[in-house]
């Protein structure tokens, strides 16, 4: 069984961390992953950097720009990860924009992910409709879970469609926003979390965008299976380097 599905069946709220591969330094990838697992993180999104990450705010974009400047490429990332499953057991997801995957070849990309032991992908600019029509078969072939986003503006009909296409979890974007844009949740978000919760979807939801501390993590996971932290972690790395990841995790839960 896919590690993501296994993890989702655990009776606990999940904490997932996003980081940009190749940041702060080109070869930090593996040690960051290992440290995160060691500190009890449940799941990791490994960011494949892109020149034009239009769903991301300045924090993640800057880390992507730096990673590219450090020399990160798809090939190098795959190389860094080739032995990752010898040391790491938690689910690993690659999160990246569609164009680099397209240039690598979507099937070649998926195949490589399977070889390495990647469990899923998050591709913000590959719409569910296109995935469903053109790529679902390939993902299935290589046992990859594809994760789709929903937002407060996503209609119920579309949520149900996304739920039907999903086979792991749904990435519930907390507010109409790019990454790193807001912090904490207001009544609007809570109503939205409640509304989705009440829909009784097949796939559990994990909340992303706007989670940066214990308070927002607790609020987010009140209605959802877990939460993803991205920008706040990148900011922490920028400030503190890769040596103090334990402190960051402790500050969240």
């Amino acid at each position, binding site marked *: 069984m896919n590690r993501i599905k296994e993890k989702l069946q655990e009776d606990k709220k999940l904490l997932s961390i996003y980081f940009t591969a190749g940041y702060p330094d080109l070869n930090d990838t593996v040690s960051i992953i290992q440290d995160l697992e060691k500190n009890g993180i449940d799941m990791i999104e490994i960011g494949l950097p*892109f020149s034009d990450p239009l769903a991301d705010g300045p924090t993640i974009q800057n880390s992507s720009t730096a990673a590219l400047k450090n020399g990160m490429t798809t090939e190098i990332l795959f190389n860094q990860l080739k032995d990752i499953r010898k040391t790491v057991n938690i689910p690993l997801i690659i999160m990246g924009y569609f164009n680099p995957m397209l240039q690598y070849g979507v099937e070649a990309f998926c195949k490589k992910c399977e070889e390495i032991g990647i469990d899923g992908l998050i591709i913000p600019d590959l719409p569910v409709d296109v995935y469903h029509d053109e790529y679902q078969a390939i993902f299935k072939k290589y046992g990859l879970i594809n994760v789709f986003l929903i937002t407060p503006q*996503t209609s119920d009909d579309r949520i149900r469609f996304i739920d039907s296409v999903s086979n792991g979890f749904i990435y519930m974007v907390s507010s109409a926003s790019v990454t790193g*844009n807001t912090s904490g949740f207001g009544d609007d978000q809570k109503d939205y979390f409640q509304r989705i919760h009440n829909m009784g979807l097949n796939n559990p939801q994990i909340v992303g965008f706007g989670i940066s501390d214990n308070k927002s993590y607790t609020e987010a996971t009140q209605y959802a299976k877990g939460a993803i932290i991205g920008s706040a972690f990148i900011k922490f790395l920028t400030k503190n380097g890769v040596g103090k990841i334990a402190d960051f995790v402790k500050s969240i839960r």
Partner: protein
Amino acid sequence: GYYGEFGGAFIPEMLYPNVEELRQNYLKVMNEPEFQKEFKQLLKDYVGRPSPLYFAKRLSEKYNTKIYLKREDLNHTGAHKINNTIGQILMAKRLGKTRIIAETGAGQHGVATATVCALMGMECIVYMGEIDIARQAPNVARMKMLGAKVVPALSGSRTLKDATNEAIRDWINNPVNTHYIIGSAIGPHPYPDMVTRFQAVISEEIKWQLQEQEGRENPDYVVACIGGGSNAAGTYYHYLHNEDVGIIAVEAAGKGINSGESAATSVLGKEGIIHGCKTLLMQTPDGQITEPYSISAGLDYPGVGPMHAHLSKTGRAEFMSITDDDAMEAGLELSKLEGIIPAIETSHALAIFKHKTFKPNDVIVMSLSGRGDKDLQNYIDYFNI
């Protein structure tokens, strides 16, 4: 939403409601008689359409063929851009939007957007790369005079492509009240189609104007320069399915196709995804979008619109690339021969006569997409005037 294999809407889910709302409504709205009436009226009384179809006598004599210039440079704000912004602001109004965002490179689309926002009393935010803001100060001032807020794009290469990213982010952050006026025939469907339809007034006019002047609707060639490709799309539109009419698309070769400083996407680009659509784009082997180069601020976009990618792939259009040097010379030549200082974008199209010989009886209609006032400093520096 596709032109052959190109096009589509490769957008984050956060943009889905916005783009879907537009997709569902744009054709319906555009076809409303009330909309058409208001659009046509503003094009006439405000923009100054029809733009003349001018027979360039001395230029024609020089190249021993018949060259007509479609004078988009005479439009209000000095280029074809406003055809689209007028259309989109009316669209935005009908969709109940109250806030307009736009991206701009050299500032022409930003000015055209700020202009229609002033006209309609709408809030206007224009994203512009920090570097472009510095080098296009007059257009920044123009936008501000028109009441727009100009926000610097500080990310990436801090030029057009990053301004576009920022605008998209703004739209993600403001999904309900905001319409994003994209300035070229690019972006996720329905933008390329919508922009093309608004610009199609260019070829609609060419048909009856050429009939009036030459006794025929169809030229032998329609020619336009291509950055994103909105003026080209409008110039070709009504001739796309008429194989008697040759289509020539002129890209910026910059310092030369193989110089590493170029914007000739049809030659250097590969299929990929940029700003929400699948098209030809300039990128690294790894799929990172690269920064193009052209002396013309309006042509240094790393992609072309999906319609043009299709025209290139299918061979329906002949793509030519023109260097900075040839373009500048052609701009000076038109100034001296016809008393028209063209935008450097347009100068690229004008330079084809140096490289391609036409028959004496060929009728060539070229889009004179914009006036050169905005490029004057460039011309001055280049020719040491």
